[in-house]
């Protein structure tokens, strides 16, 4: 029995002498909060993710979400009804819907990442100069996210600390508080971000921060500050409107400088000395991190798919009757809209009304920039080589309708699709995987800064300066100048349509101004179910439910 006892004791001692390290948990293929925020490289990696998140939110998070900024506005309407494309607005903007939820989620992810960066810096190896630089980057993106949230949802909860344990008692701040927070962050960013001529292509700069600050001052109704912020951009010697042809396809005709702005490789400063881009979101095809693939449109920016018309559905012949022979060989590398499927159909207001004064002379309305005349490209059709026009559509084809409307070529890359996507070089037939837009995308462009300053001057009653700014933009496109007397917010919104069109996140502009309902009612008869309620999206109901220890007030009308 003694021996047994001895063995038991031995056993128990053995049991308790296990090395403590055996149960330590060390992740093998990823980092953890404890070792990912130490060096400057760690923090720059976090900043890179802010670009990734920004690109996702505004361009590439999927087939539908980036286009929530276009649908439901005065610019386009839906070629095919679906909740994802803002038809049945009751459903689209329901608090339980994806639209309200997904943008909220992604934008707050940007906020949280920025907060984490700022919170982790004190315990890092960063030098003071690095800390300031990193913080400026983080605060720029935090401001971008809060500005977007505020335009979309109104006042939202302000969270500026890193969240390390579950928090379920958020309350909404006022819209003014939100804008003030954005202004605070942007002011820091303007002071501490590098100059635009010192940053890499696509990186944020103090000019980008100033541009955004000008816009947010407009929202906050601080118009003089808006002018000042815009001045910092417009007076920057490293920025100017492009006024002569340039870039990778500068010899291609037809073409003009406005067209050159949207050709592949032409957006960045270093490639072809584009001085107009302020913040250019980067896309590169078939490169890791490039955000665009030639093998599938998924994960790319699918503006071509949305805004290109669905010419595949046109079945007209020269006799003007219906036939089973498609008039167009679709999808095609030419000016027929790539692999468009006619979901973002231009409103009549966008394609016709705003151009009336300068229909022929405004280069932005030239057929290679805003296609109205389509050359039939199906050799099997007796219409081959003939032109059909949205101004004088063939019998049986409604304009604008999903199959046929005028579209902006900046949504696609005519005669310049990636070679992998070209099925048949002789006919220009594209592979069905087409549908992405293969160019870098202007988030902020100097032409817009002029229009922002014009808006500020207009609000300040300085209509002369407002007209002057607008005319800088119009002059570049050979459009006749506007007189000071004609400058008002409607005119500025129309000019933004002309200059920016589908390039602009239109919902943000109209949301900032609170004019979404009015403009839709005025310009877009398609959205019969538009209500003033929809000037703001609802707070996602899931967020209200998750935030169970405090009440997140819902926007009125929902």
């Amino acid at each position: 029995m003694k021996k047994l006892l001895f063995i038991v004791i031995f056993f128990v001692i053995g049991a308790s002498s296990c090395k403590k390290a055996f149960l330590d948990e060390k992740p093998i293929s990823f980092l953890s909060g404890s070792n990912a925020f130490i060096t400057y490289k760690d923090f720059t990696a976090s900043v890179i993710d802010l670009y990734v998140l920004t690109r996702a939110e505004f361009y590439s998070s999927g087939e539908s979400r980036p286009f929530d900024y276009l649908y439901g506005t005065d610019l386009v309407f839906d070629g095919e009804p679906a909740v994802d494309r803002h038809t049945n607005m009751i459903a689209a903007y329901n608090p339980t819907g994806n639209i309200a939820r997904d943008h909220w989620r992604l934008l707050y992810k940007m906020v949280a990442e920025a907060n984490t960066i700022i919170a982790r810096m004190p315990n890092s190896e960063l030098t003071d100069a690095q800390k300031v630089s990193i913080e400026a980057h983080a605060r720029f993106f935090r401001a971008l996210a809060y500005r977007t949230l505020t335009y979309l949802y109104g006042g939202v909860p302000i969270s500026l600390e890193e969240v390390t344990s579950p928090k379920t008692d958020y309350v909404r701040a006022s819209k003014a508080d939100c804008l003030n927070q954005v202004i605070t962050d942007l002011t820091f960013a303007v002071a501490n971000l590098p100059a635009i001529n010192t940053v890499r292509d696509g990186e944020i700069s103090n000019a980008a921060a100033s541009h955004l600050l000008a816009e947010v001052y407009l929202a906050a109704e601080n118009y003089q500050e808006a002018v000042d912020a815009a001045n910092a951009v417009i007076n920057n010697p490293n920025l100017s409107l492009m006024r002569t042809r340039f870039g990778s396809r500068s010899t291609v005709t037809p073409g003009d400088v406005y067209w050159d702005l949207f050709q592949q490789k032409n957006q960045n400063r270093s490639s072809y000395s584009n001085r107009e881009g302020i913040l250019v979101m980067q896309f590169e095809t078939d490169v890791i991190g490039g955000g665009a693939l030639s093998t599938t449109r998924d994960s790319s920016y699918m503006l071509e798919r949305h805004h290109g018309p669905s010419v595949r559905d046109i079945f007209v012949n020269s006799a003007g009757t219906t036939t089973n022979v498609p008039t167009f060989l679709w999808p095609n590398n030419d000016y027929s809209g790539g692999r468009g499927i006619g979901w973002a159909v231009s409103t009549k207001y966008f394609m016709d009304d705003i151009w009336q004064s300068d229909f022929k002379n405004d280069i932005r309305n030239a057929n290679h920039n805003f296609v109205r005349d389509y050359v039939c490209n199906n050799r099997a059709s007796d219409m081959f080589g003939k032109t059909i026009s949205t101004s004088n559509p063939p019998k049986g084809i409604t304009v604008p309708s999903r199959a046929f409307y005028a579209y902006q070529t900046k949504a696609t890359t005519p005669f310049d699709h990636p070679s992998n996507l070209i099925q048949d070089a002789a006919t220009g037939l594209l592979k069905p995987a087409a549908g992405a837009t293969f160019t870098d995308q202007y988030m902020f462009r100097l032409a817009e800064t002029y229009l922002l300053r014009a808006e500020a001057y207009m609000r300040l009653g300085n209509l002369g300066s407002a007209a002057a700014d607008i005319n800088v933009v119009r002059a570049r496109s050979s459009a006749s100048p506007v007189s000071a007397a004609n400058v008002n917010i409607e005119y500025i919104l129309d000019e933004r349509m002309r200059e920016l069109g589908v390039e602009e996140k239109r919902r943000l502009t109209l949301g900032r101004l609170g004019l979404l309902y009015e403009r839709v009612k005025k310009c877009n008869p398609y959205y019969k179910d538009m209500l003033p309620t929809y000037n703001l999206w609802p707070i996602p109901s899931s967020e209200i439910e998750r935030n169970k220890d405090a009440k997140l007030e819902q926007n009125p009308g929902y």
Partner: protein
Amino acid sequence: MCKIFTLFKHGSILKYLNKGFTVPLLISGSMLTMLLPADAWSKEAYPKMGMVDRMTIKDSLLSIPNPFLYQLEVSGKVTDAKGSPVPGVSVKIKDTSIATVTNANGEYRIRVPNNAAKLIFSYTGYSTQERDLGSGTVLNIVLAEENKNLTEVVVVGYGQQRKATVTGSIARANLESFRDAPNTNIAQSLQGAVAGLNVGPVSGAGNTPTIRVRGQNTLSGNQNALIILDGIQYNGNLSAINPDDIESIDVLKDASSTAVYGAQAANGVLLVTSRKGKGEPRINFTTSYATQTPTADLRPMTRDEQLEYMKALDLTKSYTNPAYVQPPITVIADGGIKNAAGLLPNDFNWYDAGTNRGYINDYGLSVSGGAEKVNYLISANFTNQSGFIINDKFKRKSGRANLEGKVTDWLTVGVQTFAAFNNEDGAEPDKTTLFRTSPLLVPYDASGNLIVQPYSTSQDINPFSTSNIDNFDRHNFYFANLYSQVNFPFLEGLSYRINFGNNGRTDNVYIANPYGASQTGSVSKFVEQYYDYTLDNILTYNRKINKHGITGTLLYGAIERRDEFTQANATGFSRLTLGYNNIGLGAVQTVSSGGYRESLNYQMARVNYTFDDKYIFTGTVRRDGFSAFAANNKFAVFPSASLGWIVTDESFFKIPAVQYLKIRAGYGISGNQVGRYRSLDQVRASGYTYLFGDGNSNTLFGQRLSNLGNPNLRWEKTREINLGADFTLFKGRLTGALDVYSRKTKDLLFNVNIPNVTGFETITSNIGAVSNKGIELTLTSTNINSGGFKWNTTFNFSRNVNKITELLGNGDLINSNLFIGHSINSIYDYKSDGIYGVGETIPAGYYPGTRRVVDTNNDGVVNTLDRVIIGSQDPKFRFSVLNSFDYKSFTFSFFVNSIQGGSDGYLGSNTLSLILNDNNMRYNNIAGIDWWSPSNPNGEYPRSQVSPTFNPGYYKSRSFVRLQDITLNYKFPQPLLKTLHIKNLTVFVSGKNLVTWTNWKGWDPELSNDSGLNGLNMGGRPLLKGYSAGLNVTF
């Protein structure tokens, strides 16, 4: 060899004598002479005692059952332990077919050849007795009531125990009844067969079903039962295990029995034991062939059906145009299914082309045997399964070697090892695409080339472009448990055992797809390696002193698991000649890799004490440490205690109908662990990439905090009280076990949804408590046992009620679908009471043909406040019945299994709906759906021109009764086999899943309802039924 008999002459009567013992013969010596051939005996004079003859009869003749030879009559009376006569007892002469039965007074008479003969007394419910005649002609027998419960041994974890002394809720699965069923996975034999063990069905070749014990007591923790193979925790795939190699499966259900496995045991434990060799060498060969066809008859629409369907879908175009003229179908039809000549002329059945009759072909060979010093089992198996969907293939080659040697009196060493090589080469066509590609399209062009994108108007791919590819899909499993046991000579009953279990797996999945990446070719190569070891030191002391029996067990062990994988992808190949073997030829190449390590460290002590074999106590305590838990909560202690009382052994117990009754009561705590790394805030560094500028060499890698850490994450602890009884009634005609339990799980691990303002979706937290209460009953009865006919029935019943009792903070977590007082699996959704018809007043956001949503709170608007708890996905109860019939050499059995949900339980989502859009105008759909339309206002499934604001879920009962297994097997008679030198030969035919009675619509109600895949869903897959035939021969 010959036996020598001596014949005496006693007057005119011969006497038959052996070893000096005389008995009267009933027939004359001359008759005897006549009956025996001349060469069978010899006579010689024998001088003593008036003996006249002595003859030798060849042994072989004696084996011929010839009652005329049996001149010795034996008689006697059979009584039970209490002295009552037992009528109907079979009395049989050993090695013959000569038998009789006892009469109403328990008396019998039988003639035997001589007093060397042996008699076998058997009767249901009593132990069979084999008795030598001895020196008398009267043999009275006292039959002991048989008690399997007393003799059966079960595996209890870190040891074995007689079932009689088991105090927890432990059930041994009936594997034998399902041996002949076409099951490629041992877990399939458990489906419905053990009360409280819930095993799901499988629909894919080689798949492993879900294995759950009792109710769900976790939300985000692991739900699967812990599997212990030959004492070693087995995390591999059960599909690697050859079912024929398995001797037994014991299921530990309650916490008092699972507590020995502590932190991982809250979901129950399956103890799988492989066969051991024993007795004389035995060579066994089995083979079977089974067919595989779907149980559901869903099919896609034909050409004509689809054209009608398109008209009904695009009502606006078809019927309500201003002229009220229906335009030709070519106008309505999508451009993708027509050409210049009009509609494409085809009527192609894609689904038929993508499916085939499946089969399972199985071969097994094993050699086993054992002697005093060594025993061995070596087996090999080959299984070849082809599923219903083309290329759904599973081939397994496996081998096992179990060896054990007794090296000395005190040392035993052994190894249990297997390797399995699973081959799942071949890719299936995408099921949804197979169903929905229009019959107007065809997969191949006139010259036989695959048309990658058959619709000219969409990116939808040909389903065969995902199956006509090169897919290498191999999974190799290696298992070896090396053990050694020392029986210490200095202290009787003390032994030490060390188990060193090793478990390895390699996965190699390679794909070369010429149609991938927009036909530029895509190739991927995935390689994963997994290894774990278990090192257990077990010290056992087993002693019986007078009435005190004691077994003590001490355990110290550790587990470490390591995994790593590498994935390489490339797209853009100018040619794919080298397939996946040279990924470097792709223009765009991406690589990823990862891995993990986790570890456990534990100690356990158990004592099992019996007094007078009537009173039993078991107590265990286990301490567990797991790497995945936060630093402050690495360890936890899991105690348990249980008591048993064999009531029938008490002298005061005098109910004659009850032969055995044991009452058990147990209480214990077991745990559930969270997945590794969940307590850490994880920073993911891959997948978040960006670049600045033009060009292709400046990729920048970002990092993202992907989840919120929780430094306070604790073990999920389940406390359970289990009361049970094992009983034998009516002289063994009815045996069974009844268990009732109540378990409460605290510190529920849950990925609770948190506001997105935090930057995160969820955080893994300990958030509340859930209770599970239930009852389990198993009954086995012998209904008939006479005249060689035997009919046994086993009935299983279980019921579990799940309820959330506590949630962190203020009440229900609506967004996480958790409600206090309701089941974890409650369905909280809008209510619908039909479909809006034409002409009704329809609220904004809804259209004719969309589901009507009930304003349950009557506030005039339909919003999220109108959601209510509609019911639950949990079954109300489950039952199964196994009937088996033995008649002579035939055995017939059938097994019926059922899950029932009552009016609001076992609901499944079956949300089929249709709206008009481009894709739906192109896509085919399931034939025979009762769609709503203006002309079919009572249609069951909504169909509308525009999608509604809310499309409430549509839930239907999944209750079913299934004839799951049916088997007929025939054992060839011994005399015939003897001449063929075969020990045993059995042939069988069986059927699986032949009939299912249910109101469920779609594939099969019991298949997983995740995403409604088992309902009217084109992406679902059928449960397979089949007939099989096979043989089993032993040499």
